[in-house]
């Protein structure tokens, strides 16, 4: 089992979600986050002049998938979230020790 953490452009959430559903990845947790990588912040306007915001809004998708599904999951996210510009985001893949479905008590791969 692997946990996929994808930090993407907010406007790409829906295309990515649909693409993941098409390959059978339904379970996910989505949160509003902000942060930065190499992309610089943006300048916003005050009443006169402007101020810079360094941390930009992004969306983080967390999904735990079977080892054999990791490849196609990553592929789907990259395909749908990529614009080629700075600020497209990052994906991290983490090992998962165990998972438990709270309702039934199922553990491991049965729980995802």
């Amino acid at each position, binding site marked *: 089992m692997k946990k996929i953490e994808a930090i993407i452009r907010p406007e790409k959430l829906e295309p990515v979600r649909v693409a993941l559903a098409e390959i059978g990845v339904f379970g996910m947790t989505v949160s509003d986050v902000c942060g930065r990588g190499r992309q610089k912040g943006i300048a*916003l*306007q*005050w*009443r*006169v*002049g*402007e*101020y*810079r*915001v*360094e941390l930009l809004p992004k969306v983080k998708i967390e999904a735990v998938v079977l080892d054999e599904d990791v490849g196609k999951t990553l592929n789907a996210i990259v395909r749908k979230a990529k614009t080629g510009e700075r600020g497209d985001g990052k994906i991290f893949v983490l090992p998962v020790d165990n998972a438990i479905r709270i309702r039934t008590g199922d553990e491991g791969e049965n729980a995802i």
Partner: protein
Amino acid sequence: MVNSGDTAWILISAALVMLMTPGLALFYGGMVRRKNVLSTIMMSFVLLGLIGILWLLYGYSLGFGPNLGGIIGKLDWIGLRGVGQEPSSTYATTVPQLAFMIFQAMFAVITVALWTGGVVERTKFSAFLVLAILWFTVVYCPVAHWVWGSGGWLAKLGCLDFAGGIVVHISAGMSALALALLLRPRKGFKEKEPMEPHNIPMVIMGTGLLWFGWFGFNAGSALTSGGLASSAFVATNASAAAAALTWMVLGWIYRRPSVLGVATGAVAGLAAVTPGAGFIPPLAGIPIGIVAALICYYCMVLRAKGGIDESLDVWAVHGMGGIWGTLAVGIFASVAVNSAGANGLIHGNAMLLAKQLAGVAAVAAFAFVATWILGKLVDITIGLRVKEEEEEVGLDISQHGERAYGGTLL
């Protein structure tokens, strides 16, 4: 004799002006960070209580009571003694004096609220309340008497202020500047941390309420419900509209047409037309508004470059807008509009401009110096500023034990 039309208009106008204070609270509240929105709103809203009482107890008498040397009203009308359902013989002689009194009360409330924009996000609430009482007593009431009181020295000089360009906007603007200098910048201001306005739609709601209430402020100051009120109403709207558009164009030239800019422009136009609304021809509101936006915009740029954290630009918008508007009376005023007024420069009378300048200089200097001294006094005794940790956490939690929005982010 009581005129029912005039009385109805003055009572409605008093209610309109009352609504400007919560409007201002939203206008300011939207421009601060989310951790300080309640504190910012509170500093305006609480004045409806505080000044609302003080005005009845002694403020009205200090401002409008029997003249004492042109400087202040005597305390003969303390606790509204003799102020009743009959009209006064000097002020608004066609409406019950109680109506005139409560109309003026709302001006006092919002004038104190206005300068809070200079001290947001760092002022201790207890110290603020004490300062508000002192300022109301030592700055507002005397200045109101000088300009509007029967026998006030600026009134006798012939200095004109229809609805409060001097009394409200210059006094509040200069006071905000003095207090901002005294308080020093917010933590992080020098380091250029973004002080992001946290809710611009809230600012727009506030602007809407201000613009709406301003019709009571300016057209109500005709103190009658006829032609003069209508003329002031139109001039007010013209100036607000012209200034809003001008600010939009300025923003567009440098970057993009920002919503916050249009709202700021509208307020600048409203402040600037206030002293002249009932002395100038209605269409003169347009040049007054255009020039107001230009002056206030570049004053704001200057203030920011100077590294002064007069946080919500009360000086740039109200102070400088009020100064321009007061001088503009000396240019555009016409006795054809208001026989109780005077002719300005373009009607062949240069003297009025000199009188307006005298009023501007006297009140700007007095408000700045007196406010600085009062602020210093409160700072030495109580301490004007919250502790550093309290400022970091935000004043909503540290001063009021509340937060505006449930959730986790400060």
